[in-house]
């Protein structure tokens, strides 16, 4: 997977996914529970409903994840889910964990 080098955001998008294989997107503003978001991913846009309030810059799940599933951003593994995560939920240290430097 090549590194995305030109992923400046596009005006009007609420969240950004960097690669089509990413199962999380980064929200570009604070979002409230129930909001419909426009998710930009390279040339395409899709819609996603936030199930929870999510702070600026944090991640939202683009799909349902099961415990143990790899969390992907930049087209790469950034850790694994440690709980079930529904589509539209906040993904952070409470429900995902690094794959590295674990004893």
């Amino acid at each position, binding site marked *: 997977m090549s590194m995305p*080098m030109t992923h*400046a*955001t596009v005006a009007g998008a609420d969240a950004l996914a960097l690669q089509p294989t990413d199962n999380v997107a980064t929200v*570009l503003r604070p979002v409230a529970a129930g909001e419909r978001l426009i998710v930009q991913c390279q040339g395409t846009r899709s819609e996603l409903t936030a199930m929870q309030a999510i*702070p600026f*810059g944090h991640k939202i799940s683009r799909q349902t994840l099961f415990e143990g599933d790899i*969390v992907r951003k930049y087209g790469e593994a950034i850790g694994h889910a440690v709980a079930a995560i529904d589509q539209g939920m906040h993904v952070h240290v409470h429900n*995902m*964990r690094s794959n*590295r430097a674990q004893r």
Partner: protein
Amino acid sequence: MPRQPEFLGYHRPDGRIGVRNLLLVLSCGGLTGQTARRIAAAIRGAAVITMPYGAGLIGRDETVQLASLCGLAGHPNVGAVLLVGDNARLLAKVATHLTAIGKPHAAFSLDDCDHDALTLTDRGLRAAARLARQISGQQRAPAAVSALCLGLECGRSDPSSGLVANPLTGLIADRLVDAGGQAMIGETLEWMGAEHLLAARARTPDVAVALRDAVRAREGLAVAVGVDLLGNNPGPTNIASGLSSIEEKALGNIAKSGSRMFEGVIGYGESPPAPGLWAMDGAAYSPESLTGFVAAGAQLLLFTTGVGNSYASALAPTIKISANPTSARVLHEQLDFDASQAFLGRATLSDMADALFDEMLDIASGKASWGEILGEGDEVVSRFGPAL
């Protein structure tokens, strides 16, 4: 063929080009730190660096200490050096290096000064004043950007760093490398989870192995001492801003290395032996990491931040870049370059890179960075083991 961009710099006898002409007061041991600060405070514009350790350093620490002192004192941004210390033999080694590269200097040990800080202050201050006058007439002259060596750093990162500020910095690294200059990334721990991407850009198979080995050694260190990286790196500020794991941080971090090939992995504070992009195996904490770049000869540092980080090098102008719109709004006297328009989708990274490259050359030619104006500069050399 387009003319290569230039900046105005100080041409040193060793062939390197400085972007500043600093008088450096360098304390080469822990007993003379306050004396060095006192002398530097009395000379307008002087830089001060204090090495807090001395006798008792062994092995790699002793080697790195001497190499770092020589690298900092001999730095192209330094016009002249006053060395003070408590170890006359160490001072003589650094002074010998400075003589070899043609750098004006004076050296005083406590042994020469009745073992008294006030006597050292008096003699040192008079010598420093003479050095300051000696270099004050030096003029800048045009130099090609290929003479630049750039250290690439991030600190207090947030998700805007990996999305915009680091890729933007990567474009600058690419341009400088393409022009024949040097660029370095460090912070080995923050390659973890992205080392396969770095290895894919290794110039040779040996370089790929060295990149992976460097990460494996850091990971082994963390596991061996039982450190949970969550809360350490990413740290509490990173986590609050939305970074969830070292892999996520690393994948954003490495974007600032751009897209060119890695020529090699160099040790902490070690000068890149040839043009191109290099990876320095070093500590992730910014003060140690930046000093590694500076001791290696970096004249300028590009430092991306998410929520803000005022720290700067004492010798190399440290250009602060953020794409976080809130940071850009509130950190007027910290951020040298506002990349938030790219985060907001109102400017392309390519347009921003043109502006940042111009700003970098302006700062190389003498425009002051905020860190210099506010005197934030410091240097911290890494330690590797216990002392005797």
